[in-house]
C-alpha cells in the first residue's frame, strides 16, 4: 500500500469531524438542560401533563377533574422505591437524564432536596390568587403541616397527607400479657415494661418481640430522639411566611410565631439526648425485646404485628390501611401517642404535590393540585383508596373513615398535632438523601455492636459536619 492509498491516518482525518463533535460534547460538564415539559400546544384541548404518580390511585378523582378541565390530560410516570429517598433519587436521575415531568408527589424527605436544587416551583402566586379556595383548605389543615411544606418563606406543596410516628399496639398480645391499653400520657418506662412482658424467646419463627422498628429516617428510633428532646440537627425557623400566616391563619393560636419553613444547618447528632435514645434501642435489642433490624418501609413489621409476633411498633395513619388491606381485622391492633420521655414531642412527615419549576403548564398543574386537595377531591380519593395514609384535612379523620379498619383510637392521629403543637417534621435539609444514608449506616453499626452508641453518633456527627461543609451550594443559599 503506497502513500496515495487511504491510510488509517487519512481515514481518521476524514472522520475527525464526527469524532471531535462527539467528544467535544463530553469535554466539560455543563448543567443538564432544565427538565423540560411537554411542548405547549396551541389549543387548550391538547395540554398533556406528565405526572409522577400512581394512575390507579389517582383514577377516582380524574373524572371530576376532567369534567372541569377537559383540555387537560394526564400522563402518569410511575416511580417506585423502598423509601422516600430512593424515590427522590430516581426522580433526580430522571430529570438529570432529560425526562420530562410537570409535577410529582413528594414527602417531607424530598421537599428541600428539590427546592434546594431549584427544581421545584414555589406556589405563592397561585395560593395568593385563589385565596377563597385556599382559605377553605387551610382552615382544616394544621399549621405544622403547612410550615413543613415551606422553604425559605415560600410554600412548595399543599399538604395532602401526613403521618406522625405513633405507637401501634397488638391488642391480643397486650391482653394475653395482662397489660392495660396505655393512656395518652404513658411514659418510656411504661413502654419498656410492656415490651419486656410481651417478649418471648423461642425457636426461629416462633419468637414474640415487644417492639420492632425499621432502619430508616421516619419512624425508626427517631421518635425516641424527639421524645428525649433531641434532633439530628438544630431546628431553626426560616424567615418569611408572613404572607401566608397573616392571611390564612391569623386567628389560629397554633400558627403564632411560625416562620417560612425549617432550616437544619448545624448537626447535633452526638448530643446526649440522641446518644441516650440510641442506647435505649440498642439495649432493647441486646435484651431480645426487639428483632434484628429491618430494612425498608415497614411491610415486614406489619406482617409481624398482624401475626402476633410483635407487640408494638412506630406507625402513622397509613398503617391502618396497610394492616386492613393485609387482612388484619379491626380490633386486632390499636394506636396510642408515642410515650413521654423528657417530653412528648412527636415527629411527622407530610406529603403533597410539587410543581416542576421548568414546567410550561404551571397553571394547569396548579388546577390539578388544587382539585386534589379540594374537599370533594380528597374525600373521593380516600373513599376509594381507603386510609392508606392520613388525610391532611382534620374533619376527614372521623369515625366513618376508620369504621372498616380501625384503629379504635384513630383520634390520636390528629391529636398528635393539635395537642402537641411542638411536634415537628423529621429533619430533612436539602442534603436529606446523603444524611439518611449516614443515619441508617451508623444506626446499623451501633445495632451490630461494632460501635457504642456514643462512638456511632460521634462518627455520624463528624460526617454530617463534613457533608454540610461541602454542600453549601444547596444548603439554604439565601442565608
Amino acid at each position, binding site marked *: *500500500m*503506497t502513500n*496515495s*492509498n*487511504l491510510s488509517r491516518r487519512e*481515514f481518521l482525518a476524514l*472522520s475527525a469531524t*464526527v*469524532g471531535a463533535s*462527539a*467528544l467535544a*460534547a*463530553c*469535554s*466539560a*460538564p*455543563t*448543567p*443538564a438542560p432544565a427538565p423540560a415539559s411537554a411542548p405547549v400546544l396551541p389549543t387548550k384541548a391538547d395540554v398533556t401533563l406528565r405526572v409522577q404518580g400512581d394512575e390507579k390511585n389517582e383514577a377516582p378523582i380524574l373524572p371530576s377533574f376532567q369534567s372541569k378541565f377537559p383540555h387537560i390530560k394526564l400522563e402518569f410516570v410511575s416511580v417506585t422505591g423502598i423509601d422516600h*429517598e430512593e424515590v427522590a*433519587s*430516581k426522580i*433526580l*436521575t430522571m*430529570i*438529570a437524564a432529560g425526562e420530562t415531568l410537570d409535577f410529582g408527589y413528594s414527602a417531607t424527605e424530598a421537599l428541600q432536596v428539590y427546592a434546594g*436544587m*431549584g*427544581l421545584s416551583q414555589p406556589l405563592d402566586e397561585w395560593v395568593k390568587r385563589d385565596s377563597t379556595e385556599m382559605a377553605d383548605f387551610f382552615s382544616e389543615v394544621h399549621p405544622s403541616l403547612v410550615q413543613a411544606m415551606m422553604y425559605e418563606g415560600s410554600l412548595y406543596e399543599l399538604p395532602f397527607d401526613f403521618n406522625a410516628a405513633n405507637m401501634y399496639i397488638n391488642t391480643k398480645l397486650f391482653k394475653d400479657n395482662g397489660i392495660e391499653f396505655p393512656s395518652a400520657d404513658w411514659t418510656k418506662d411504661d413502654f419498656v415494661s410492656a415490651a419486656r412482658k410481651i417478649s418471648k424467646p423461642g*425457636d*426461629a*419463627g416462633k*419468637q414474640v*418481640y415487644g417492639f420492632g422498628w425499621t*432502619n430508616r429516617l421516619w419512624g425508626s428510633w427517631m421518635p425516641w430522639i424527639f421524645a428525649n428532646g433531641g434532633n439530628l440537627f438544630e431546628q431553626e425557623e426560616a424567615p418569611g411566611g408572613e404572607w401566608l400566616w397573616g392571611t390564612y391563619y391569623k386567628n389560629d393560636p397554633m400558627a403564632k410565631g411560625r416562620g417560612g419553613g425549617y432550616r437544619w444547618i448545624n448537626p447535633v447528632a452526638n448530643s446526649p439526648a440522641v446518644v441516650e435514645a440510641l442506647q435505649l434501642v440498642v439495649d432493647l435489642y441486646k435484651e431480645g425485646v426487639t*428483632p*434484628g*433490624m429491618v*430494612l425498608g418501609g415497614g411491610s415486614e413489621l406489619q406482617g*409481624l404485628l398482624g401475626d402476633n*409476633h410483635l407487640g408494638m411498633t412506630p406507625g402513622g395513619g397509613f398503617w391502618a390501611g396497610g394492616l386492613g388491606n393485609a387482612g388484619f381485622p379491626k380490633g386486632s391492633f390499636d394506636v396510642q401517642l408515642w410515650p413521654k420521655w423528657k417530653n412528648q414531642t412527636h415527629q411527622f412527615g407530610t406529603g403533597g404535590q410539587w410543581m416542576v419549576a421548568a414546567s410550561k403548564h404551571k397553571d394547569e398543574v396548579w388546577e390539578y393540585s388544587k382539585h386534589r386537595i379540594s374537599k370533594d377531591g380528597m374525600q373521593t380519593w380516600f373513599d376509594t383508596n381507603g386510609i392508606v395514609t392520613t388525610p391532611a384535612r382534620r374533619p376527614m379523620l372521623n369515625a366513618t373513615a376508620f369504621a372498616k379498619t380501625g384503629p379504635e383510637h384513630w383520634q390520636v392521629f390528629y391529636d398528635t398535632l393539635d395537642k402537641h403543637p411542638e411536634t415537628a417534621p423529621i429533619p430533612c435539609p436539602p442534603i436529606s*438523601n*446523603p444524611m439518611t*444514608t449516614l443515619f*441508617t*449506616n*451508623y444506626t*446499623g*453499626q451501633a*445495632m*451490630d455492636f*461494632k*460501635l457504642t452508641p456514643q462512638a456511632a453518633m460521634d462518627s455520624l456527627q463528624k460526617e454530617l459536619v463534613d457533608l454540610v461543609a461541602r454542600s453549601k*451550594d*444547596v444548603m439554604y443559599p439565601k442565608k
Partner: protein
Amino acid sequence: MTDQVSKNSRSARKRQPVSLVSWFAQNTLKGMARRKALLGYIFVAPTILGVTVFVAGPVLFSIALSFYAWNVFQPAKNVGVENYIRMAADSRVLVGFFNSAKFAAIAIGLQIALGLGLALALRTKMTSWMRTYFRTAFFLPFLLSGVATGLVFSYMLNSDFGVVNYYLSLLGFAPIRFLNSSEAALNSVILAYMWQALGFSMIGMLGGLSNVSPDILDAATVDGATGWNWLWHIILPLLSPTIFFMAVVGVISALQIFDQPYAMTRGGPGDASRTMVMSLYEAAFKNMELGYAASISVILFIVIMAVTSVQFISGKKWVFYQ
C-alpha cells in the same frame, strides 16, 4: 528549453487540484486500492462510531468529570484532584474496595472449585435424563435477576423468621444473624451470588471437559492415573484455558457486584457488605455527586484493569493450550 517546459508541466500537474471523488475514481491500480480501502473503512465505521460514542466517549467523559464537582443541576466546578484526595480518606469507599476484593476472591475461587466439582460429578455414570435434569437445575438460577435472588435470600436468611434459621433451630443450633451481623453479612451475600452463578461455571467446565481428548484420558488411565493425581496432573492442566476464562470473566463481574448486596443488606450492617459499585451508586444517584462518583469509577476501572492484567501475565505460567 524542452527540459524547462517539462519541469513546468510537472509542477503544474502537481499543483492541479484533484477532487476527492476523482481521487477515488481514478481508473488505476492505486485508485482501485483506494476504493477497496474505503469500502473496508465504511464497513468498520459503524463499529468505530459506536465504540467512540458509547464507550470511548463516556470513558473520557468520566475521566474528565472526576476532576469536577457537579450535581447536574448547577454548573460544574473544577476541583482538580480533590475528589481523589477525598476518596483516599473516605473510609466508607475504602471498605467498599476491600469488600469487593474479598467478595471476588472468595466467590470466584468457590465458583470455580464447585463448578468443576459439579461438572465432574455430572460426568459420572447416570441416566441421560438425570444428567439433563441436574444440568438444567443448576443452570436455571443463572437466568434469574440478581435483585430477585437477593430478595428471596433476604427472606430465607432473616435472622428471626427466616426458613434457614428455622431448620437450624430444629437441629438444635442457635439462630445465626445472617444479614444483621457484620461477620456474616458479606458471606451471606456471597452465598446468594454463588447459588446463582454456580450454574454458569458448571456449564463452562462441562464445555471444557468435553473438549478434552478421550485419548489423553484413556492414556492417563492406562498409565494408572487415578483420584487426586488424575485431577491434578491431567484434568486441571487440560482445563486450564477454561479455568482462566472463568477467572477473568468472574473477577471482572464480581468486582462490579451491586444487585445482590443492595437487595439483601443495602451494604450493611454499617458498611459490612458495602461494595465498590454501591459507593459509586450512592455518590452518583443518591447524593448527586457526579464528579466524586466518576473518580470512584476511574479507580474501579484501574483496579479491574490491573487485576485482569495480572491474571493474563500469570496465566502464561499456568494455562496450557492443547
